[in-house]
């Protein structure tokens, strides 16, 4: 059986990892919007913007699937 201290540390680590995952997801969304809008206007093509968002959605889905399959 785990001691209380070990369990507390383990919970803290789990929570910290969950916080970092949430922050990384949100940060990547912000970065995508920033880069996407500049790239779309720089290329002058609407497909670049749509493509950037579409690829990002696929990437988020792929990461989510991979994480679930790994469990």
């Amino acid at each position, binding site marked *: 059986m785990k001691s209380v201290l070990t369990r507390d540390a383990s919970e803290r680590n789990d929570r910290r990892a969950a916080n970092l995952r949430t922050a990384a997801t*949100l*940060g990547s*969304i912000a970065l995508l919007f*920033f880069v996407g*809008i500049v790239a779309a*206007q*720089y290329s002058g093509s609407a497909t670049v913007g749509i493509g950037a968002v579409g690829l990002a959605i696929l990437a988020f889905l792929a990461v989510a699937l991979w994480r679930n399959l790994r469990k």
Partner: protein
Amino acid sequence: MSSIPHDHAAGHDAHAHVPSGIMRWITTTNHKDIGTLYLWFSMIMFLAGGVLALTIRTELFQPGLQIVDPEFFNSLTTLHGLIMVFGAIMPAAVGFANWQIPLMIGAPDMAFARMNNWSFWLLPFAAALLIASFFVPGGAAAGGWTLYAPLSVQAGMGLDFTIFAVHILGASSIMGAINIITTILNLRAPGMTLMKMPLFVWTWLITAYLLIAVMPVLAGAVTMLLTDRHFGTSFFNAAGGGDPVLFQHIFWFFGHPEVYIMILPAFGIVSTIIPAFSRKPLFGYASMVYATSSIAILSFIVWAHHMFTVGMPAAGQLFFMYATMLIAVPTGVKVFNWVATMWRGSLTFETPMLFAIGFIFLFTMGGFTGLVLSITPVDIQLQDTYYVVAHFHYVLVAGSLFAFFGGVYYWLPKWSGRMYDETLGKWHFWLSMIFFNVTFFPMHFLGLAGMPRRIPDYATQFTDWNMVASIGAFGFGLSQLVFLYTVLKAMRSGPKASARPWEGADTLEWTLPSPAPYHTFETPPHVG
């Protein structure tokens, strides 16, 4: 909404070591300290933006040029808008979030305490850049807070200062939003499901998502502006193949959700105050959550109602007109629910409640003028007139600001451990209420009569109402000194506050002693 199962002080150490001195404030990672820093910063910026507003109103007291030249007048209107939006209202809302969200969800602190410190300490540098831009060659930005290209592409060095300030403010906001979402999603006390969260927490969760979605868009717009100015690109310059209207589309894709970023936390505060002083649970809690979400979603599809005069196909005009009108539905749900909460409640009218009721009354008026402006042919007549100035001041001053005043009076006992002077608080409310209307109500008449905004001089037919508005502005400005005095007096010598000074208050923070200990909820409470 969650209710208090029982009074408890488990997990709080009222005698914990509290750092002191200037280094406490510079290096602090405590959410209460950072909330305090945000609130004082926003107060200072509110006074700075207010001084610019009073200079504008002094110039407009009578026709002709009195005290400032036209170029400087344009800088005043521009910086007044930027300072109030990014320096006063938004940081005040984040200050409330920092203080209240961990206390209301039973979390020990924000999820990323050091990033929280960074989010705040970026702000003074951005504010310094904005204010310093007055003193650089060419003066401060003068094209309005919207920084419209291609005019801004040709502006002086002051605009570069503004662009960098907006970048820094945007980074601060995004970090703050990430922190708030992570805190709410991951650090809620056991038993506090999403649909048990206080509505203030809900409104901030939705606001934080809006921030994540639109601040990068603004950052992208000003980055393109910067490269157009200095690196030879032509995003917005027609001579180089760019599109001058593009900037407006991108700006308002940020700008309209930004309005809700400023008002949704105010909705949350009002939704907390009204049940407390009605001694009833909030009417239609779930519908309030859905209405807030609907407002946020709709805010992404209405941006071009700011651009009806730019020219767009009739189908586009109709779409943006009807989409804008649609926002009145969830907003109406909220107003209905606030009134229904008060209906047959055991009402008392302490200062927070007065500000909340003032908010409902005046914000609804601002909402109705917004509906008037959403009608495309009417908007084309009223575009860039004082009617628009009246509309958004009813929404943002009587809306956001009044709610924030109410929030300060409501939570000050918990923050400082001391009660404010109720008489002074009521003086502050009534003076603000009267002088606000004296200032901004006549602007409807001026706008309907055709007076354009952002001009230092005007036709003599507009003189009388401008004089009334200027007198009201000075009255409103001086009224805020009553607020400052009331808060400082309470903090220095106010009578001690009990743990729960408002008998109708039922959220988690009121289970704590007053003032809230430096460290709270280190052992999470269980919410029933």
